[in-house]
C-alpha cells in the first residue's frame, strides 16, 4: 500500500470544504447526540457507493459512527456514548468504500452549528469558573487553545470579543501560554492538527522551532511569538484608543 507523506496525496483523497457540511448537536438530554443535517457533494468527482462515517470529538476523546450510504445517510440524531461533557466539539466527516479503510474524501475540524466555525488558534468560550475571570486550555488534538472566560462577566464570546480591554490585556498572555505549551512538546508543530498554527508562525517570519531542552531559548521563542501576535493585532493601539474614548466620555 502507498505510504503516507505530508508532501503528496498518494491515495487521491478529496478534500471536502467545510461549507458543504452542517452538523447539529443536542446536549439538552442526558445523552449527547449529533445529526449530520447536510452533506453537499455537488460538483465533486467521487467513486460510487461510498459510505459516510463521522468521527465526533470532544476534549481528548472521540467516537466513530457509520451513517450508511452517501445516497441515504442517517440524518437522525445519533447518541454518543464515548464522549465526556468537557471540551470543545469538532467533527471529521469521512467518505469510505464499504469494506475498505482507505478514505475517499474527508472534511476535518468541522464545528457544529451555532458554535462558530472559527479556525482561530485561540477560541473564546464561556465557562463556569467561580471567581476566576479566565482560564486557557490547550486542545492538543485540535491544534489550538480555548480561552474560557467567566460567564458571569460575559454571556457570549461576541460580548467578550467586543470588550477591547479584555481582548487587549488577556490575549497576549493567552498567546504566550499557547506558545509555551508548543515549546515544551517536542515535534508538536510537525503534527497535522498544528498545521494552521505553524503556517501562521511562518507567515510572521517564525520558521525555527523552539529547543525543548533549553528554557532560555524557549522563553525567547515565546516572546517572539507574542511580539508577532501583538504586532498583528495592534493591541497597544487598540487599548490606547479604547482608553482615550473612555476619558472623553
Amino acid at each position, binding site marked *: 500500500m502507498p505510504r503516507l507523506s505530508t508532501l503528496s496525496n498518494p491515495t487521491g*483523497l478529496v478534500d471536502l470544504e467545510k461549507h458543504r457540511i452542517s452538523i447539529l448537536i443536542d446536549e439538552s438530554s442526558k445523552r449527547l447526540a449529533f445529526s449530520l443535517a447536510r452533506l453537499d457533494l455537488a460538483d465533486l468527482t467521487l467513486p460510487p457507493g461510498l459510505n459516510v462515517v463521522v468521527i465526533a470529538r470532544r476534549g*481528548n476523546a472521540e467516537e*466513530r459512527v457509520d451513517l450508511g450510504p452517501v445516497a441515504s445517510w442517517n440524518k437522525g440524531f445519533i447518541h454518543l456514548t*464515548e464522549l465526556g461533557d*468537557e*471540551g470543545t466539539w469538532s467533527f471529521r466527516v469521512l467518505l469510505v468504500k464499504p469494506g475498505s*479503510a482507505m478514505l475517499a474524501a474527508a472534511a476535518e475540524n468541522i464545528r457544529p452549528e451555532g458554535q462558530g466555525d472559527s479556525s482561530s488558534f485561540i477560541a473564546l468560550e464561556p465557562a463556569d469558573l467561580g471567581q476566576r475571570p479566565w482560564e486557557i486550555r490547550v486542545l492538543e*488534538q485540535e491544534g489550538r487553545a480555548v480561552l474560557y472566560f467567566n460567564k458571569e462577566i460575559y454571556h457570549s464570546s461576541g460580548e467578550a470579543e467586543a470588550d477591547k480591554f479584555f481582548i487587549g490585556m488577556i490575549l497576549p498572555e493567552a498567546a504566550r501560554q499557547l506558545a509555551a505549551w508548543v515549546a515544551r512538546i517536542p*515535534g508538536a508543530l510537525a503534527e497535522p492538527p498544528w498545521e494552521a498554527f505553524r503556517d501562521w508562525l511562518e507567515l510572521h517570519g517564525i520558521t525555527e522551532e523552539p529547543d525543548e531542552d533549553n528554557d532560555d531559548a524557549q522563553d525567547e521563542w515565546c516572546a517572539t511569538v507574542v511580539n508577532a501576535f501583538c504586532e498583528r493585532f495592534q493591541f497597544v493601539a487598540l487599548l490606547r484608543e479604547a482608553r482615550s474614548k473612555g476619558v472623553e466620555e
Partner: protein
Amino acid sequence: MKLHRLSDAGRESYRSWLAQRRLGEMPPPKLLSDPSVTELAIDIEIDLTRVFKTRFEFGKFIAELLAHEDAKAMLSQKNDGLWDWLTIAFFSQFGKKASKPWHYTVTRRGHSGSLAYRHLARTAFEMYWRHGQASLVMLHVDMSTWGDLAEQLTSRQNVAYHRGYIQAANALYLSEGKLRRGAASRVRPVKKRKPGETVGKGGVARLALAVRRLCRTYDTHILETVDMIDLLPKEFKNFIAKSPQAAQS
C-alpha cells in the same frame, strides 16, 4: 466486602490525605467503610486480600467482577468515588511509590484537560475492558507503576480507543510479557541528535504520531492490526521484523 464508593466528603478527605502523605503510610481506615464517607456502590463482593503481580491482572480481575455492569457507566463521573475507593482498598499495592495524586484519585480537570486516564485502578479496568489481552502492553507493570509507556499509549484517547493501534503496540513492543529493548525510548531533539542516530525511532511515542498521521488517509478505527503495521513508516522496521504477528503481513 461489597464494592463501595467514596462520597464527595470522602473524596475530599482522601485528597487531603494524599496531599500530605508520606511514603509507607496507609489511608485512614475509615475511608474504606465508614458510612460518613463511603456508600455502597454495587451489590458485588470483592476479595480485598487479593495480590496482583501486574496492573493487567488487576484490570482483568475488576473487568470480570463487573462483567454484568455497564462499563461506560462505571467509567462515568458518578463512579469516580468507586475507583478512588478501590485504590484505597488495594493501597498496600498501589501506593508503594509516592506518585502524583492523580494516580490515586480520579482527576477530571488539569491544565490541558482531564487527567482521569492516569488513575492506576480505573485505567487498568478501562484498558482491559476495551482491549482485552492486548492491553498487556500498557499494563504489564507492577501495581504501583504508571510508566512512560502507559502515558504514551493512553494520553491521547482518540488513538487509545483504537483496537488496531493497541494491538499493533502489543505486537511490536511486547515479547513474552516483557517490553522489547528501545520500545520506550524517545527521539532526541534535532540539535542534540548525532548524524544517523536512530534512538527512539519506531518507539511507542512515535507510534501514536504515526497513527494520527494515518488517520488523515485511513479510517484507522477499522484497520486490522496487520494492515496498520503494514502502513507504518520505515522507522518501525526493526520492531516489525521482531514481531511474529507483523511478519504475517
